[in-house]
Each structure stands twice: as structure tokens, then as C-alpha cells.
């Protein structure tokens, strides 16, 4: 995984898919639907944020489970950085959704099960970050946050995908509202939507990989500093400098 993250070919694919998304998303023909009008194109940008978030948070929870099976600092690094990037995507998903809702539903926020579920899910993940920062001991931090991440993911899925479907929701694809179903099947939308989802998700993985590699460098620097900090203390034991013990 770590060598794959440093490869370039999938980053090229990311850029190609996203350029295609921007051009196709703005220029290709879309279904003409009342209320939505041209804003239907937001589908290519708003929804991939959530797909991207879900993919990133899934990778994160997989590494958290890996950590619980076999603890290592590297595995914890993956869990935190993929969660970080996933949360960024989730926040962008909420913001873009809110803007879109103001146009189609007439308000930035409504007490809709899908919206509230998404907001609660984001708060749960914010708490994950706060929990991590509140623990000083590295191993304790990694272990407790790995367990928390598993619970956070286990509440994310019902909040976003099960509870909103059990009741009425304005949000397409939920409750009694068939919403996007009528044009989800539209091949014109799929032509851009699927590449958009893959492109944005890959871009998220790219950003997460950069944060991950920076974190590893930071840890190596800290190790170096600790080594140097420990070396002079040896000379305090009375041995002349330069002697190996």
C-alpha cells in the first residue's frame, strides 16, 4: 500500500477523471427537470464528496481494525490520516448540500433525517479528532481512538443510509421520495457521475497519502531528536565524549 501511494499513474488517472468531470459536468446534456433546472449538475460535485468521504472513512476503519489486531504506529498513521481527509470531504458535502438545498428546497437547513443524520455523523467524527488530541500517551491514543473509530463507523452507516430510508425525507433516494431514482437511471448522468465519484475519491486518497507521508517524516524527525537528546545524557554519566558504550 505504501509503495502504491507513491506511484504516479493513479494520480494521472485522478486528474484526467476530474478534468473530464468538470468539462462533462458543465457541458454535457442533462435531464430537464423542474425545480432542479441546471442545478442538477451539482450531482457531479456534491454526491462524490459523500462517496469520497465514505471510501476514505472505510479505509480508515479498516486500518483501525488492523491496529487492534496487530498494533503498529504505521497502521495508526493510516487510520488517522484517512479519517482526517474523509472528514474534510464530509464537511464539503454538508456545505455543498446546504447551498443546493437553499436553491431547491428554499432553505439552507431543514430538519430532514438525511441532513441531521449527516450532521450527527460529522460531529461523531469531530469527537474522534478531539479524543485523539486529548490523549498524550501514543499507544493509548492509538488504541482508544482505533476502538472509537470502529464505533464511529458503525453509527455512520445507519445515520446516513438506514435511518433516513425508514422515514420520509426530502433528500432524494430516501423515504417516500423516489427523487433521483427517475434520473439516477439516466445514462447521461451516469456518464459523468461514475467517473466523478472515482476521480474525487482518488483525489481524497492522494491528499490523505500526502498527509500520511508528511506524518511519517515528522515521526522520523522526532525519533532523530530523541536520539540526539539521549546521546548527551550518556556523556553525563562520566564517559568522555566519543566513547562508545
Amino acid at each position, binding site marked *: 500500500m505504501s509503495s502504491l501511494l*507513491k506511484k504516479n499513474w493513479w*494520480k494521472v488517472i485522478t*486528474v484526467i477523471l*476530474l*478534468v473530464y468531470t*468538470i*468539462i462533462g459536468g*458543465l*457541458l454535457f446534456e442533462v435531464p*430537464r*427537470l*423542474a425545480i432542479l*433546472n*441546471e442545478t442538477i449538475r451539482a450531482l457531479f460535485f456534491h454526491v462524490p464528496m459523500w462517496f469520497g468521504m465514505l471510501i476514505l472513512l472505510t479505509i480508515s476503519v479498516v486500518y483501525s481494525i488492523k491496529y487492534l489486531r496487530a498494533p503498529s504506529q504505521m497502521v495508526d498513521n493510516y487510520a488517522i490520516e484517512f479519517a482526517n481527509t474523509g472528514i474534510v470531504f464530509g464537511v464539503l458535502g454538508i456545505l455543498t448540500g446546504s447551498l443546493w438545498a437553499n436553491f431547491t428546497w428554499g432553505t439552507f437547513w431543514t430538519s430532514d433525517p438525511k441532513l441531521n443524520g449527516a450532521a450527527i455523523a460529522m460531529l461523531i467524527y469531530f469527537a474522534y479528532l478531539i479524543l485523539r488530541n486529548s490523549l498524550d500517551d501514543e499507544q493509548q491514543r492509538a488504541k482508544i481512538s482505533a476502538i472509537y473509530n470502529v464505533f464511529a463507523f458503525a453509527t455512520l452507516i445507519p445515520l446516513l443510509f438506514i435511518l433516513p430510508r425508514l422515514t420520509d425525507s426530502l433528500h432524494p433516494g430516501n423515504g417516500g421520495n423516489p427523487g433521483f431514482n427517475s434520473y439516477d437511471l439516466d445514462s447521461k448522468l451516469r456518464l459523468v457521475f461514475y467517473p466523478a465519484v472515482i476521480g474525487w475519491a482518488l483525489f481524497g486518497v*492522494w*491528499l490523505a497519502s*500526502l498527509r500520511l*507521508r*508528511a506524518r*511519517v*517524516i515528522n515521526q*522520523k*524527525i522526532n525519533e*532523530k531528536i530523541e536520539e540526539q537528546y539521549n546521546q548527551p545524557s550518556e556523556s553525563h554519566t562520566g564517559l568522555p565524549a566519543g566513547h562508545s558504550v
Partner: protein
Amino acid sequence: MSLLLISSLSAFAQVSSEVEEVAMADTFRAEGKIYVVVALILLIFAGLIIYTVRIDRKISCLEREMNNLHD
């Protein structure tokens, strides 16, 4: 048969006239102004990607330096 054809044609015409009623940015597109928007977003996107690639290279450079230090 011809009756069926005519009825299907009229049904098609009805659907297409309904479709026409939905307001879309047709004039905006016809004037070609949409290409300005597309070009603008692509420029910003290109800028962000170039910046991301540079960060990627910088991190690769730091990784190499770090490994040299370890040797």
C-alpha cells in the same frame, strides 16, 4: 398501425413540449458563455493540481533526505 404511429408521435410531441417548459440556461449556452466558466474552473483546478503535485514532490524530496540521514 398508422393510428398507433400517429398517437405515439403525438405522445412524443407532448413530452418534448413539456420538456421545453423547464427553464435551463439555453441562451447562456448558445452564446458560448458557458465555455468561459468551464475555462475558468479548469484554470483554478489546474492551479490546485500543480500545487498538489509540487507538495507531493517536496515530500518525496524530504523522504529521500530522511533516508540518507538514516544510512
